[in-house]
């Protein structure tokens, strides 16, 4: 009896080594592909909840824009198209570098992967920097509802906005709705960017250590999905907030 027990012991121990598999394959998955599929499915489900979240904000924007149309037009004229365009380009570049990062991870090129991730990180920070400049400008112009707001620019448009018709007081007050939604939408987007660049820092360190260039790349892939999603949100925010009211 005893000898039999001892004989079977090594077999139990070897169960791990017997079906030789890659170290990053979890035991509850059959294959690496299945694991990869499951994690990308889960990531997409998360992103769908994010679509609903931002979708609520977009719907609110749509309805209030119809409601207080002159206020939204006047409010949007205060944004800088140059800075908005610059930030859109920066974010698209960062999406490209992220896609190239995933590609480098697929090809198992460690230094390339780190390079692309660092580029993505830098571009993400540039975006946040430009956003900070814009927020600062809003503060200086007293366009921050609740904290630092004045209807002056809308009841008595300055010489800089000569073609701007002055708004009656009640409609001028409603520009606060525009700026509230502006800060809510770009702020939530910026929060996603801040979370993104923070995760990127950790990923860069792990990628440098070679964690994502040995065949295990679902983390990089899923982070890429998140990053591209944040890019897509901005692709819609930019025209809706900055561009569509130029001629009204």
């Amino acid at each position: 009896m005893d000898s039999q027990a001892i004989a079977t012991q090594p077999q139990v121990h070897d169960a791990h080594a017997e079906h030789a598999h890659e170290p990053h394959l979890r035991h509850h998955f059959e294959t690496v592909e299945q694991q990869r599929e499951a994690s990308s499915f889960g990531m997409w489900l998360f992103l769908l909840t994010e679509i609903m979240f931002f979708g609520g904000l977009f719907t609110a924007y749509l309805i209030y824009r119809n409601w207080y149309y002159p206020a939204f037009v006047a409010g949007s004229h205060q944004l800088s198209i140059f800075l908005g365009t610059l930030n859109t380009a920066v974010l698209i570049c960062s999406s490209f570098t992220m896609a190239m990062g995933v590609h480098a991870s697929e090809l198992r090129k460690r230094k390339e992967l780190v390079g692309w991730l660092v580029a993505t990180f830098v571009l993400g920070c540039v975006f946040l920097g430009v956003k900070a400049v814009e927020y600062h400008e809003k503060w200086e112009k007293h366009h921050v509802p609740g904290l630092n707001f004045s209807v002056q620019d809308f009841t008595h448009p300055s010489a800089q906005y000569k073609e701007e018709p002055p708004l009656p007081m009640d409609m001028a007050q409603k520009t606060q709705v525009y700026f509230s939604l502006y800060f809510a939408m770009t702020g939530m987007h910026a929060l996603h960017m801040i979370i993104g660049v923070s995760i990127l820092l950790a990923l860069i360190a792990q990628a440098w250590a070679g964690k994502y260039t040995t065949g295990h790349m679902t983390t990089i892939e899923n982070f890429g999905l998140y990053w591209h999603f944040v890019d897509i949100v901005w692709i819609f925010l930019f025209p809706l907030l900055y561009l569509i009211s130029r001629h009204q």
Partner: protein
Amino acid sequence: MSTHVKNEVLDTEPTHHASHIVSPKVYGVIFGALLVGTALTVAASYANFGIFNPIVALGIACTKAVLVILFFMHVKYSSRLTKLTVAAGFFTFLVLITMSLTDYISRAWGLW
């Protein structure tokens, strides 16, 4: 041995993730198209299309978003499960927006 057979069954399932490596050339082309789209949408905002300005802007934005989703996010090369998930998400989102706006537009019907 039994695991081997199981894997073969899995391979035929619609959840199979074909490990398709997208070439950098594709990424480059999409990157260029996105930048062109950005330039287009800014240029279009300076032209006066009347009520069509927002429609043109949203059309360009949707095209850009589809490019990002299909190529940068690999949906074009993903399993049918992933494609269905993404499509179902956007469909649900459109249903929610459409119903909200339908309610909004019809609630005071004839009173404006």
